[in-house]
């Protein structure tokens, strides 16, 4: 699984970071980015799916299932 945060959609809710702080990082302005290249280790797929489903802006994009 590979994911990406669309910077044009992200508004800094930080829900993804709260749910999966190993997959996402947030800056001082709240903007989220994926850690590394966005590849999700198998054991964190459920967390990534949760982050995708809870983002109020639909900003987390699934690049590869």
């Amino acid at each position, binding site marked *: 699984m590979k994911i990406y945060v669309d910077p044009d959609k992200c*508004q*800094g*809710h*930080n*829900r993804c*970071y*709260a749910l999966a702080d190993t997959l996402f990082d*947030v*800056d*001082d*302005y*709240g903007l989220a980015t994926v850690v590394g290249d966005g590849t999700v280790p198998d054991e964190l797929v459920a967390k990534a799916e*949760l982050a995708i*489903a*809870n*983002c*109020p*802006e639909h900003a987390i994009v699934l690049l590869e299932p």
Partner: protein
Amino acid sequence: MTTTPPVRDWATDYDIFDPAYIADPFSIWDELRNECPIAHSDRFGGSWLPTRYEDVVAMAHDIEHFSSRSISVVPPGQNEDTQLTAGLPPIGVDPPVHTWSRRLLLPWFSHRAVGQAEPATRELCRSLVDGIVAAGHGDAAAGYAQQIPVRVIAVILGVPQERSDDFTGWVRDVLEFAHDAERRKRGADALIEYFIEEIGKRRENPGDDLISELLRSEVDGEPVPDDHILGTAALTLIAGVDTTWSAIGSSLWHLATHPDDRRRLVEEPDLMPIAIEELLRAYSPVTMARIVASDTEVAGCPMHEGDRVLMNFPAANRDPDAFERADEVIIDRELNRHVAFGVGIHRCAGSNLARMELRVALTEWLERIPEFHIEDPDKVTWAGGQVRGPRNVPVVIP
């Protein structure tokens, strides 16, 4: 106190300050969603009230048609807020001013900054809990929830915590009593006068607080205008007090009246972050307003330039089309795309701070007071309007 006639019909004559709406807005929204999902009322200068998640989110994102130049649910009266010539940036302005004014504010409420405020917040909660435990009873709203956010935000603004009762009073005048023009103006005037003086003091003796930082900041090579600093300082206090205290109070009221949820949180403290999102969804405190910037249509509803729209985030969060069993608190609800902090470019800048305060306040309470119940349901009081939450929740520790 202004009194208004009883509501004839919620679809055409709603009043968000009506006691029935404050007591149980949920059944009113359910009825409206089925029959008239965007209601209208001529009260308080006229406004629209959407109730569906889809519509509220669409309007929040459509900043072209929905301006934030006036965000109060009741329009300001004539001669009111005349000193706030820059409005309440960033929440009360549109881009491009919104963009830079929000950037000035956000680092103060980042994950990192909020983490630094957590130990003091925990200490504060513990000392308040000590008093309630010692007494064996207390008011979870007035004696606990109400005491927390005002002190945390005072530190950020660099104003004395000893003035907390004044701050709380002014903010209540502006929000809770917005329908009482005289009281609202009195609170707003006091708050504005206070910050004019504080800004002057900070100019002479800068510190490491938000107001001092705004005074040091520049925009396009120029100092941030004074009226802008005034608006942002006033906003930070107004937005940082009543909102979070209402969320903490509603959550404690829920836990007092739902022993199963309370015991589960005591037994599974790791559930707290998920539980907080659910409590925020179910008891979202904040309704903001927008002004229609140019004629448009939402869900077949024609809206005209200048119309006021109440961004009903609380109702959106109770929409059964967006949430399964929307009318129930499911304390471990995992799929929860709620919009309690708004959505789009005006997402609450203080949401990290509010979440931290809510988590710490509930954790510290439950750690020392795992069992408690409402002393007398008739003594529980709620306030509503722009911000809904309980004002008195007297509880007893068995």
